[in-house]
C-alpha cells in the first residue's frame, strides 16, 4: 500500500484551534506541502499575523515569527534583507493585510520585496466576532452591518490583487479559492508558483486565497462553501493577475 495522502512534514502534528469547517486548516496544509515539495523547510521563515491565524507558529514546523497587527510585510522585509538566502513568507488575513496593514503591503509590493505573501480573505473580521472588514461584500450581514453592507455608508470592498497589480515591484499576483477539491489543487499550484518566484529572485509574490468562515457567516460548513462560490467569486474573480513578464 502506498500513501496517496498524508500530513506534510512541515506541519507539526498538533490539532488546529480553528472552528469546524474553517478553511485556514486547508491553506496551512497547502503551504506546508509546498515547503516540503520545494525542499526549503530548513531555510523557510514564516511571519504570522494577528487574527484567527495568530498561532501559525504553533503549526508550521519551520522558523516562525509573529508580527504586530498588519506589520508582517515589514517584519518579513527585515528578515529577507538581513538573510537573503532564506525563503520568507507571511501568512495574513484580510483584517490584518487589507485593513490595518494596507500601508505595509502596498509598500512591500512597491519596493518589490522578494518574499511571498499568503493572503487569506474570508470577507469578515473573524477572531473578534464577525465585524465588517474592508473585504466584506456589499449586502453582506455582519455584526456591524446588521442590514447588510451599504455602499453609501460603508463604501466598497477592497480588491487587493487588482490594487497591487499596477505596482512595478509586484511580480506574481494570483487569486484562488479553497471551497472544493478542484480549487484546492489550483490553489496549491499558485502557492507553489509564488514560492518559486521568490526562489528565482523575481520580486514580490502574493496569493489571495478566498476562504470560508462558517461560524461568523452563520452557515454550516458545506453551505459556507456554496456561499463562497456564489457570492465571493463573482466579486473577487479567480486567476493570475500578474506573472513575471506578463500583466493582465
Amino acid at each position, binding site marked *: 500500500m502506498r500513501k496517496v*495522502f498524508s500530513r506534510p512534514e512541515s506541519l507539526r502534528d498538533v490539532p488546529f484551534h*480553528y472552528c469546524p*469547517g*474553517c*478553511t485556514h*486548516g*486547508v491553506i496551512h496544509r497547502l503551504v506546508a506541502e509546498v515547503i516540503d515539495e520545494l525542499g526549503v523547510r530548513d531555510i523557510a521563515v514564516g511571519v504570522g499575523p494577528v487574527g484567527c491565524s495568530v498561532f501559525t507558529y504553533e503549526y508550521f514546523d519551520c522558523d516562525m515569527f509573529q508580527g504586530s497587527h498588519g506589520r508582517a510585510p515589514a517584519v518579513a522585509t527585515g528578515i529577507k534583507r538581513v538573510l537573503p538566502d532564506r525563503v520568507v513568507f507571511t501568512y495574513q488575513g484580510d483584517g490584518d493585510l487589507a485593513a490595518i496593514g494596507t500601508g505595509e503591503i502596498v509598500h512591500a509590493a512597491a519596493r518589490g520585496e522578494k518574499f511571498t505573501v499568503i493572503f487569506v480573505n474570508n470577507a469578515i473580521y473573524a477572531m473578534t466576532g464577525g465585524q465588517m472588514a474592508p473585504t466584506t461584500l456589499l449586502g453582506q450581514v455582519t455584526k456591524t452591518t446588521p442590514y447588510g453592507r451599504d455602499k453609501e455608508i460603508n463604501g466598497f470592498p477592497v480588491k487587493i490583487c487588482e490594487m497591487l497589480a499596477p505596482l512595478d515591484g509586484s511580480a506574481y499576483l494570483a487569486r484562488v479559492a479553497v471551497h472544493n477539491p478542484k480549487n484546492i489543487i489550483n490553489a496549491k499550484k499558485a502557492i507553489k508558483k509564488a514560492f518559486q518566484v521568490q526562489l528565482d529572485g523575481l520580486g514580490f509574490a502574493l496569493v489571495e486565497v478566498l476562504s470560508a468562515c462558517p461560524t461568523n457567516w452563520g452557515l454550516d460548513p458545506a453551505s459556507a462553501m456554496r456561499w463562497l462560490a456564489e457570492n465571493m467569486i463573482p466579486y473577487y474573480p479567480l486567476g493570475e493577475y500578474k506573472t513575471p513578464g506578463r500583466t493582465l
Partner: protein
Amino acid sequence: MPKVTFREERCKACELCASVCPKKIITMAGHINEMGYHPATVKEQEKCTGCAMCALICPDLVIEVEKEEKAG
C-alpha cells in the same frame, strides 16, 4: 483496494468530507469523540476509490488515504 482512515480524535464533524465524497460513503458516527463531535467514518470501505477528495478538503488533516501500488 484503496483504504481511507480517519483520525477520529481530530475530527470536528464539519462534514465537508461527506459533502465532496463522490461515492457518498462518508457518514458521521453515532458516538462522540473527546472534543464532543460525532467523528466522520466510512461505512462501506470497499466502495472507496481512493480519490482523496475527502482528504483534500479536510481542514483538520483527519484523513489518510492509501492505494495499492500499480503493477509494473
